[in-house]
């Protein structure tokens, strides 16, 4: 007899858990007479789907969920991602049947409550950003970015200014910025940062010519720094005939502190799944509304909610006159927008200003508490996130990756690593306003211990994590021998 080792994790996939004839749900019997079927040539022979009981499904997915790290479990210091607490009341309001069960093509008079909510949210987001209008139709950050650069393109085209092909992007930018600009048909020119982590104004000045369509700027930058030259930067771009795009990924630092529209930004997208507390869901759904200055209003992606007076006052889905068009089939990720509205109403003006205050204070507290052990590429106070460099640890044979993986052993998520690209061995930490001082102190303590371990027992770091459901995975094998789906056994 051979004995087979039993894996601790019953890792069989759905199809391998199937038993022929088992069911997990059933419908009431058909209550209309059966109708003639279409010709056999268009019907499928077999439907290869799992056959499981309800409990099979519950156990399998509950077990899977337990192999995830999550904000609900512990601290998630993931820079540029704003992993703040996702309030539970947001889930309650989004699940109200009056919101979750309505159909996107219902006549406007039957969805006045939904349209009123969207109209109110439009007002909140334009007030926060100091802009003239917004479309909520874009459903992720990068989707909003694409809409933003498409509007810049539409603006120049509408003025018959067809030679503007170039979009300037700082070297610290998130990868979606150049990818979005390219999707909109632009050429990307990279602008370096100066020795203080600010945009190199002299390089910018030279690059800003009559081929300039615009620039995409993240403020605060992905270095966690607010560029004190921002007014001059906007001015240079505007004087060259370009428009200024603001990536609002880092808006959590700015709530109530500055309105980018007043500073000179022409378009700003917001990530409601960051700043406005909607959950990330393991990679979406998000929402990426685009807020614009007066001159881009006509180009907003459709639809935009309008309030129409006269006759019977009502909210309608309006189509901006020179819209770049539809970005998705319907009106945006409504369920996410309900959550964001709920968050903004829970906090109000003073609350949102306290959010940015606490987020920035906490990041600076971490910076001040760890700067003796981890290097800073730019020695100045930060905004809502702090970027360390693990170059000192690298000299001891330990990489940023190892530091990050070791954190997992302490129940803390890894920081963002190797980004921004211009910082060697970058470790980017964003605490958000949600984390208490006690949590920050424990993080600091753990980071100090890891710094010590990198000297004493570097092997422990290089093999970390030690306590996770799986250890480091073979990414090379995944890419070289792609196994991307279940297949029947031969």
């Amino acid at each position, binding site marked *: 007899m051979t004995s087979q080792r039993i894996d601790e994790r019953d890792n069989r*996939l*759905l199809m391998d858990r199937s038993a022929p004839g088992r*069911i997990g*749900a059933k*419908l009431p019997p*058909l209550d209309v007479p059966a*109708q003639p079927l279409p010709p056999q040539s*268009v019907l*499928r022979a077999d439907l290869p789907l*799992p056959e499981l009981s309800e409990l099979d499904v*519950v156990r399998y997915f509950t077990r*899977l*969920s337990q*192999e995830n790290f999550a904000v609900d479990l512990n601290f998630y210091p*993931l820079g540029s991602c704003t*992993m703040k607490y*996702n309030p539970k009341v947001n889930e309650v309001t989004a699940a*109200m*049947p009056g919101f979750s069960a309505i*159909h*996107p*093509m219902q006549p406007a008079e039957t969805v*006045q409550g939904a349209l*009123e909510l969207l109209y109110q949210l439009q007002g909140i987001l334009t*007030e*926060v950003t100091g802009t003239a209008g917004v479309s909520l139709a874009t459903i992720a*950050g990068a989707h909003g970015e694409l809409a933003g650069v498409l509007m810049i393109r539409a603006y120049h085209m509408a003025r018959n200014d067809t030679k503007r092909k170039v979009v300037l992007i700082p070297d610290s930018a998130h*990868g979606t910025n*150049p*990818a979005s600009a*390219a999707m909109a048909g632009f050429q990307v020119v990279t602008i370096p940062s100066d020795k203080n982590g600010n945009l190199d104004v002299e390089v910018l000045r030279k690059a800003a010519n009559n081929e300039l369509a615009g620039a995409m700027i993240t403020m605060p930058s992905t270095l966690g720094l607010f560029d004190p030259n921002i007014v001059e930067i906007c001015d240079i771009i505007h004087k060259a005939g370009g428009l200024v795009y603001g990536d609002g990924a880092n808006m959590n630092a700015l709530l109530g502190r*500055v*309105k980018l529209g*007043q500073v000179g930004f022409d378009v700003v997208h917001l990530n409601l799944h960051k700043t406005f*507390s909607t959950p990330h*869901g*393991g*990679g*979406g759904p998000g929402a990426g509304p685009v807020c614009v200055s007066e001159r881009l209003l006509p180009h907003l992606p459709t639809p935009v909610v309008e309030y129409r007076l006269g006759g019977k006052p009502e909210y309608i889905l309006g189509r901006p006159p020179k819209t770049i*068009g539809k970005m998705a089939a*319907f*009106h*945006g990720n*409504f*369920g*996410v927008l309900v959550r964001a509205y709920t968050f903004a*109403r*829970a906090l109000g003006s003073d609350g*949102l*200003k306290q959010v940015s205050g606490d987020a920035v204070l906490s990041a600076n507290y971490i910076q001040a508490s760890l700067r003796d052990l981890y290097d800073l590429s730019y020695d100045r*106070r930060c905004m809502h996130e702090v970027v360390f460099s693990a170059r000192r640890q690298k000299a001891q044979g330990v990489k940023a990756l190892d530091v990050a993986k070791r954190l997992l052993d302490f129940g803390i998520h890894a920081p963002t690593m190797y980004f921004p690209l211009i910082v060697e061995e970058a470790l980017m930490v964003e605490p958000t306003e949600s984390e*208490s001082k006690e949590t920050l102190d424990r993080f600091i303590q753990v980071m100090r211990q890891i710094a010590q371990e990198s000297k004493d027992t570097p092997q422990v770091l290089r093999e970390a*994590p030690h306590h996770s*459901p*799986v250890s480091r*995975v*073979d990414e090379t094998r995944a*890419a070289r021998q792609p196994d*991307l*789906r279940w297949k029947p056994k031969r």
Partner: protein
Amino acid sequence: MSFRHQYLPHTDAQRAEMLAKVGVPSEEFLFRDIPEKFRNPKMTLPPALTEMDLVQELRTLASKNVVPGEYASFLGAGASRHFVPSVVGALISRGEFLTPYTPYQPEVSQGTLQATYEFQSLVCLLTGMEVANAGMYEGASSLAESALMACRLANRYTVLMLDTVNPHYREVVRTYTEPQGIRLEVVSADHLSLHEDYACLLVQSPNFFGSLEDLAKLRQETAAKGMLLVVASDLVPLAMLKPPGEFGADIVVGECQPAGINSSFGGPYVGYFTCKEQFIRQMPGRIVGKTVDTQGRTAYVLTLQTREQHIRRERATSNICTSEALIATSMTIYLATMGKQGFRQVAEQCYHKAHYAASKLAAVPGFSLVPSGTGVFFNEFVVRCPLPPAELNRQLLRNRILGGLDVSDQVPNGMLVCVTEVNSKAEIDTFVKAASSAGAHR
């Protein structure tokens, strides 16, 4: 004293301690890089509400909407109402699915990664395609991205699309293709003239009007010109109909909403995206692959990332980053629960109930069915009404019925009716009766 709130844990004493550690006299001091002229602008938002008042406020807004379920609904056109077992909501509202980030740290993200691998597997099984990605924003942008991908693959920059594709999808395809200098031609299947300049043909089957397109014929004709065939299809019909993969489609995309996802006024939904394996390096979006960890245990990980924006920047296959992972997991749990028999039953009931409704409506004087494509439809169909559909819908609303979509801009007096397993015979009969009386009073 600072603003106190349950989302903000710092006490004033702790803030003071932290400021001392940082070495600044006040929080205000930390914002000094912002030019003074623009610092601390006046911000006037609606007043903050406590949770008690907040829930009441939102309930009031929600109560101003007419809710399908309380009303019978016959609306489709890209989103439709279906039965969703309780398991789906119960599982995806778990914080461990709801509140993680994108699974960049596979050691602590196996739940999301394995669920996504299951999503990819189920999508392939349903569509009959070789590979799928981890999901797109929704159906229309999936189709738009497929057009961009087809152009890259074929190295041709004209896209042909049938005029029976959902008009919203058509518009999104235009938004995405036009800036890249791609020519988009929209044609009727009756006047199809293909040639070697076209990268691909985009079709939807069942199409916007509910009818199946002749995929076998379209595959043959596109292949003869070296064109890719891209098919958009919702998932529910695929439980009953021969999948596009079996017709030899190159790329198959679509909307997953009808499979376990709330209609939620248009989102969040999730699109699926599949293709032949040979095209995978041009695919947009994230992909999860199976591998092993250092101890040889099965593990899942994001893979083939050199296609993506965070590595390839302006040369990426797409800018897509955060997408719809949680919604993809909803669909996966839905399909796991409904299973082989349940999901087939959903499709069959949709088919029989829609055909019952169509035959009853067609028998009403003044109403007639408007065929499209091959004339075979699944669970949506267009009926020509003896009065403007908007007017009929107003009368139906008085009978607590949300009628079909007014498509009179495309078919004179046309209404696009969608029937699913949740529409009872009684609802259908009431609809037919109300339509009949509205028609008779013309």
